[in-house]
């Protein structure tokens, strides 16, 4: 087995042991439940946690995919129209800097169904990292390759499809990885703030209920479940990145 698999598993085992020890000994963290208590809480509240997790995960994945598609399309438009790019560039930077904790309450519009709200906030949170990296990446195409395409009399769209997009793929995949990290955060935070609007509670709403009820094992169980979905999404993106770039990109080939 390779080291990049063994070492994280070892760290997980050590982490579990440390966690169990901290829960057993008197550290002053009276509310920290151990791994077994957390597993019990997850099982006991499974009928509340898993449907909520499913709803948030669906909004998270859909929002993430939508943001990636819109981000790349917008980057192509901004690459094509210089005037539009110059007009929007500062606002793109500002929007990218704005923390999602500040943006989410602004985007939570009461007439929207909770799922749609989650989808919108997750899309917005993931969109800016993608578009802000994809645009300069599409513009930074190697000049000699652009010249090569000119000698082939390639059309603008042939240039985009066959040259600019694949050339930008390494940076684009890095941006998409970052967006995959933002997606669960945005989804959980929005649900925490807007969960009260929903008929069925999501993870955020459940979280606030568990806080009020001081159900600490369930809080940890819920956080770990949300993290697991986030890890699954980031892992999938990482695997796709490795697969698409493995033959031709130095970093993915271990030759950098």
């Amino acid at each position, binding site marked *: 087995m390779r080291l990049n698999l063994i070492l994280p598993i070892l760290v997980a085992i050590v982490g579990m042991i440390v966690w169990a020890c901290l829960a057993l000994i008197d550290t002053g963290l009276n509310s920290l439940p151990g791994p077994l208590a957390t597993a019990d809480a997850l099982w006991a509240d499974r009928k509340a946690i898993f449907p909520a997790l499913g709803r948030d995960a669906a909004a998270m994945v859909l929002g993430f995919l939508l943001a990636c598609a819109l981000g790349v399309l917008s980057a192509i438009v901004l690459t094509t129209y210089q005037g539009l790019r110059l007009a929007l560039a500062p606002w793109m930077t500002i929007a990218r800097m704005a923390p999602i904790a500040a943006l989410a309450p602004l985007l939570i519009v009461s007439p929207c169904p909770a799922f749609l709200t989650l989808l919108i906030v997750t899309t917005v949170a993931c969109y800016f990292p993608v578009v802000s990296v994809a645009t300069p990446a599409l513009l930074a195409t*190697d000049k*000699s*390759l652009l*010249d*090569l*395409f*000119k*000698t*082939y*009399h*390639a059309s603008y769209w*042939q240039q985009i499809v*066959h*040259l600019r997009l*694949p050339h930008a*793929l390494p940076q684009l995949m890095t941006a998409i990885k970052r967006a995959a990290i933002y997606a669960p955060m945005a989804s959980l935070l929005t649900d925490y703030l807007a969960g009260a609007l929903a008929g069925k509670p999501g993870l955020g709403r459940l979280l606030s209920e568990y806080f009020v009820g001081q159900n600490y094992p369930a809080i940890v169980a819920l956080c770990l479940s949300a993290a697991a979905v986030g890890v699954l999404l980031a892992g999938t993106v990482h695997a796709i990145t490795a697969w698409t770039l493995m*033959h*031709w*990109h*130095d970093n993915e*080939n271990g*030759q950098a």
Partner: protein
Amino acid sequence: MTTKPQLRIINVSKRYANGSAVLDDFSLDIANDDFVAFIGPRGCGKSTILRLLAGLTPLSGGNIEHLGGEEIHRRTSFIFQEPTLLPWRTVESNIRLPLELRGASKDEQEDQAHEIMKLWELSHVSERYPLQLSAGMKTRASLARGLATAPRCLLLDEPFAALDAITRNKLCVELMRVREKRHFTACLVTHSAAEAVFLANRVIVLTANPGRVAEIIEVPETHPRKLAWRETNAFQEALNQVRNALNRVQEAAKQS
């Protein structure tokens, strides 16, 4: 060899935006099946001539007539100093690229690519990516791609500059062998007087800033030439003529 001109460069000049002249009053006729080599001091506009011929740079003055019309202009192929292979495509896919962009059918792409790979002895690496190729193989693939569309004129901008002497000599011989089968006009830019004499039937020595035709040295040896020809007195004599012309150009540049 016919003497019918294919390209006519008439009083061409090229100036940069800051007003500095790269080429001035440059005129030359290039015949069908001609192999012309441009040589001269750094900054004399050798590469600029090729870029003007390929339509990559606009003219500042004068005219270039592609005798035979637009069709011939579109059947000009440019080989850059770097191999400019698309790293995300295999060797075969890179060779198919110009045909793909031209809208050739899949069958035509496959037939042409296989034929040209056989000609350049690339069939065994057809599925490899550029990252997996040696510098010599990359140049070979780049030359193969340049010929995939059966160009009437091949523009070679120092394609062997980054190669070691053995690979460079080997590829020069290969280029001649392929040219015997494909019959194309060639314009080569090089810093190597030996390479120019070995490949070309006319060596054009350019003056330093701005570039003009200083001397034209005819190399009467018939194509294809063998490596052994480089050991003959005829080769040495032509080489000395080119070197002396270069010395005269450099002396004149120092005095002005």
